[in-house]
């Protein structure tokens, strides 16, 4: 009986060892994954993080795991995965602030502006720098949404004196002015211009080179059609052939001019969106990525 008890205690000891190791191991393995992530050994870090058995982790360990998985996804520009992991970190975690700010930014980058705005509304801001950063990020989202009045309200909180924010705040103001000064062009008017003078609609839309490139072949085709009509009459193959080509290009140019307005507008907006997102990112990295 004593021998049995003795062997039983040895067995229990061995069975419990992995349990203790799992708890003790988490910190070691997490630190190892972080070391790999900092070394930009992203595949290896992802492998280590995926090896964790989530069932056996405590809430705080799950938070640390979610943070590092999200951060790794952010580093590899998998922003969808990054936002979902970073935003799942609970407020009790020491990574909460950083996760929240970066998670919201990842959403803004993916143009999920309503969700990003809602999360930024609740961002933790414990000191004056974070309060200003929060206002700055919200103002960035307001500009991305083209909500100028909201931007003007939020920019009241800009101090323009913080080392990490002043340059970006000034630039955000410049973007706001640039966006407000955008000329509203009408696709219908562009089409009308091109109907009167081929290519002029594209010039009106802001695509001058395309306008000239459209005008020259249409002028040539128009002249060839006129020559066919003048020399061979309205039933000649020459007139009908060149006339048909001219008509197709003429109508196509009108349609292209209406589209050019939209294309130009999209290019303009995309250019400003990229600049805004870039400037929203810099203070986050400077203030929170420590």
């Amino acid at each position: 009986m004593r021998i049995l008890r003795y062997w039983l205690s040895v067995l229990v000891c061995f069975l419990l060892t992995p349990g203790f190791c799992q708890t003790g191991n988490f910190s070691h393995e997490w630190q190892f994954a972080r070391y790999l992530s900092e070394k930009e050994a992203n595949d290896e870090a992802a492998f280590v993080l995926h090896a964790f058995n989530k069932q056996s982790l405590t809430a705080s360990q799950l938070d640390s795991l979610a943070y590092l998985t999200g951060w790794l996804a952010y580093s590899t520009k998998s922003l969808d995965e990054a936002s979902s992991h970073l935003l799942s970190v609970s407020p009790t975690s020491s990574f909460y602030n950083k996760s929240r700010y970066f998670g919201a930014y990842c959403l803004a980058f993916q143009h999920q502006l309503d969700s990003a705005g809602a999360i930024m509304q609740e961002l933790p801001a414990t000191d004056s720098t974070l309060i200003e950063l929060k206002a700055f990020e919200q103002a960035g989202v307001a500009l991305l949404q083209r909500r100028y009045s909201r931007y003007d309200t939020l920019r009241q909180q800009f101090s323009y004196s913080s080392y990490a924010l002043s340059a970006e705040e000034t630039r955000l103001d410049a973007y706001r002015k640039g966006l407000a000064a955008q000329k509203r062009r009408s696709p219908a008017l562009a089409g009308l211009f091109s109907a009167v003078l081929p290519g002029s609609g594209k010039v009106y839309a802001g695509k001058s080179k395309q306008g000239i490139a459209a005008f020259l072949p249409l002028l040539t085709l128009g002249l060839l059609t006129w020559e066919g009509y003048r020399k061979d009459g309205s039933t000649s193959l020459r007139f009908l052939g060149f006339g048909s080509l001219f008509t197709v290009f003429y109508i196509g140019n009108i349609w292209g001019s209406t589209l050019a307005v939209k294309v130009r507008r999209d290019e303009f907006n995309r250019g400003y969106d990229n600049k805004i997102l870039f400037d929203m990112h810099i203070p986050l990295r400077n203030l929170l990525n420590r």
Partner: protein
Amino acid sequence: MTTRFCLICTFLCGICSIASAQNPLAQADSLFASGQFLVARVGYERVLYTAESPDIQVGAAMGKARCLKQQGLYAQAVAFLNGQIQPSYPDSLLYSLRREQILCAYLAGQFENALSLLERLPYLHSDVPVSPLLMAIRVLSLNELRRWPEASVAYHELAVMAQTDTLSVPYRQVPELKSEKKAQWLSTFIPGAGQFYAGRPGEAVLSIVMQSAGLYFGVTSFLQGYYLSAWGVGAGLFGSFHAGGVRRAEVLVRQLNQRKAAAFNANVRQQVLEMVK
């Protein structure tokens, strides 16, 4: 009873720790041998994370570089080894890391980088004789960059070192590359001549026919009084095919040069690899 229990535990723990302490690279090495390269990379990184001995650290770094090479991630291997070169390591270990980095740079197609790293080696490790493999990499990198006169000198040095035949030097028949500029000029003034120069008579004939057709249409239209058609269609077609022909001649010469250089380099590579086998 308690004593026996403690002794058994100590024995088991001792066995475990001895097994792992004997060779920290053993597990990663066995994973590498079984072809599990990603897991092996993690294993080597684990060793790098914990080990303090330079020997083991360099062993782990070389192991990870081998894994990356097996996975074809040569550029990643170059960057990784760059981060592993620590001035505090002994010279012999640094040399093996740098040697591996040069090899990876060549395999990654970073020929300029491979040459630059090779040129630094005699200054950093003046006591180490140049290895035939590194000389071979120098020859092959110079070849890829089409610096054949320098490659010829390096090849001769390698042949002397490898004690092989130095008379049958492949660089006596270096490919004569054609000039893209010359092809452009030829096609500008004589339609199709650039394509002939590039060794593509079929394309040359096609170019001549297309340009002639445009010109013929233009001239006949003009003679019949269709002045606008002569200009808009005839001259337009001729001009387009002429400009296209000039650009095409340039592309054809570039492709021809690439083929010639690749064939020559493949031949030299074969001979160089035979030498260093």
